[in-house]
């Protein structure tokens, strides 16, 4: 059950709660996924670009969503299924 690289753009619906950002739903491959839990949020730098990585999950899958602060785009980087 290792991660599988995806690296595809996705549409993400996000909630802003206080000082936190929480992905709620995303659409990938014509399907909608509801995020049950945001497990870990961390930031990475690639040169000047800062990326926020959201490790999220639903009941059966874990996903890694990347948000680029430079391009303001979301990418589904990886997924792991039960």
């Amino acid at each position: 059950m290792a991660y599988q690289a995806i690296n595809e753009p996705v549409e993400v619906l996000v909630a802003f709660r206080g000082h936190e950002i929480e992905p709620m739903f995303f659409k990938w491959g014509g399907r909608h996924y509801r995020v049950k839990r945001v497990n870990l949020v961390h930031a990475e730098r690639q040169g000047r670009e800062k990326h926020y990585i959201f490790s999220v999950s639903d009941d059966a899958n874990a996903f890694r969503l990347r948000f680029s602060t430079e391009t303001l785009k979301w990418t589904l980087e990886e997924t792991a299924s039960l």
Partner: protein
Amino acid sequence: MIAHIDMNSYFASVEQQANPHWRGRPLGVCAYLHKHGCVIAASIEAKKRGAKVGMSVDECRQVCPDMVFVQNDPPKYRAVTSRVFSLLHQISDKIEHYSIDEAFLDLDGWYRDEAEVAWALCKMRMQIQREIGDWLKCSIGIAPSKFLAKLASDLEKPNGLVIITPENLDKTLSTLELEDACGIGRHIRRRLNRLGIYTLLDLKHYPVANLMRALGKAGWTWHERLHGRDVDRLEVAGERLPKSVGHSFCVPRRANEQGLILPIAVRLTERAGRRLRSFGLFARSMSIQVGFRGQTQNPSFYHPFENGSSCSMVFGEPVNDIFSLTHGATELLKSVWDGKRQVSFLAVTLIDLVPPSGQTALPLSVSALPRHLSPTDAGERKRSTSYAVDSIRDRYGDESIVFANMIKLGGDYAPDRIGFRKTEGVDVVTPF
């Protein structure tokens, strides 16, 4: 009063935090996802089933067939460490970032007694679990000295809290073997056993003069440590400069077949050089270690090689520019490798690091330079070019500008690696 915070099974816990489906399952974080890849962190569940840090993936599979393996993700661990250390900085202004998952806190003057310290640290541990991740666990040790604080945090894992005071010191030491102490290995244990010392309590009560006769100055240090006196200075974050900077890589077969040995050596040198410049230091010497396939010895950084596959050089004057370092590495590689043997391991280390002297270089050798350049000009140009290249990389990423021979080098060759004792790149927000 010193506290030691040790994150339990750190890399594996962070991975389990990121993916809840791995929680409660044996998990190994590997340097490389290969059957010979080394497991650098094992989850608590994996450790319970016999998997240990340092085993290969194959060995772990033998003791724990359903173990899951993931490749390490250094930026993730650094980011989590930054957040954990930022929380610790709310408790004290004197913190030593001992490693990527350990820190010492000097709490003198902040709290009245051990009970208050324990209360504050338990609150901090709950804050880590609430704000960063509920699966992250840490052990806490509180004691009068750095050595005893580390000893205390090792006693109860995971999520333990142990306080060593002068009153319970003897009782605690009597239950511990010599090798439980950080700094006592197999060889020292044997020497102590010959003196009739079998536990840490025996060591504490052994006459210091006899101990010094047997171990030298280390004998006195151990005597002081076990009496709770602080002989190990707390190195506050930011004060400590590195003694060496290096990078290593286990070279796969395909890199040999594609003729990528030299580009890999250049990339390792570039990474080391960039870190050296970020510290504002210069290197007086450089060494390169090359492991060959078929060599009987296990090629590892900590084991010197046979067959003359390790070589070092001293620069004419301390350098930190890209050109001098890569030229040095290339020459060293040529001296230990004939270009034909299969290379399995490469390491580049910059040693004897010094701050800039500000001294103008004397024009002692001009033969290799164009006529219009004095040695001083050339050195200055190399340095300013190196800093310009660093600025480009800061802005556009590490691989935005590279030497021409590195163009074919994929990102999986000599990637970013995490060092247990390396806390650079861990940015901390401090309230003080």
